[in-house]
């Protein structure tokens, strides 16, 4: 079964770049790696997904090395409103394509 590991928590300051890395093994070779953001008392919401190399949207960038054993979510110039829990989501390499969630990284952005 695929396994994911991400830091439990991170601290940052407004205006800094924040990088959150998720390590994952035994993931499906032909599926996306996806990241979600969750604010308190809300459901997670999609931020970004990628298959390999680098993907960028208006919110974040996602870096995925060639071996796809990790992925790094990069948040440029964070603000207080980026304080949230961030989850990586991968697909297991088994036939059932099971979705495997990380346990989440709680990011605190300080003024």
């Amino acid at each position, binding site marked *: 079964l695929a396994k994911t590991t991400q830091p439990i928590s991170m601290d940052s300051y407004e205006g800094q770049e924040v990088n959150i890395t998720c390590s994952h093994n035994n993931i499906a070779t032909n599926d996306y790696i*996806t990241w979600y953001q969750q604010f308190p*008392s809300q*459901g*997670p919401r999609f931020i970004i997904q990628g298959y390999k190399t680098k993907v960028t949207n208006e919110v974040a960038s996602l870096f995925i090395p060639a071996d796809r054993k990790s992925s790094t979510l990069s948040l440029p110039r964070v603000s207080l409103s980026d304080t949230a829990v961030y989850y990586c989501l991968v697909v297991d390499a088994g036939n059932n394509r099971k979705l495997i969630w*990380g346990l989440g990284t709680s990011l605190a952005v300080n003024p």
Partner: protein
Amino acid sequence: DVKVTQSSRYLVKRTGEKVFLECVQDMDHENMFWYRQDPGLGLRLIYFSYDVKMKEKGDIPEGYSVSREKKERFSLILESASTNQTSMYLCASGLPGAGNTIYFGEGSWLTVV
């Protein structure tokens, strides 16, 4: 925008009661999911459904059942609520093969006393 609506945000139920959590999505998605979220344990899949009247057990199905009579609606049922089922319940929907883009509701906070 995709909308996943969970019928109740906050519920308080007594031990032994039968509890229904309703979820409706408006995007004609085939896949629907029920997750449970507890501090330190992340998101744990209870059941999912990939079509009307179809269901598959997730990681923690014990004590729960589900119903999907219509494509847009997926219900989670606690047959006899217990205090260890006090939790936040999240419904989600998505298209098969659409990467891992699934859409969540706002969550239902259930307290069993």
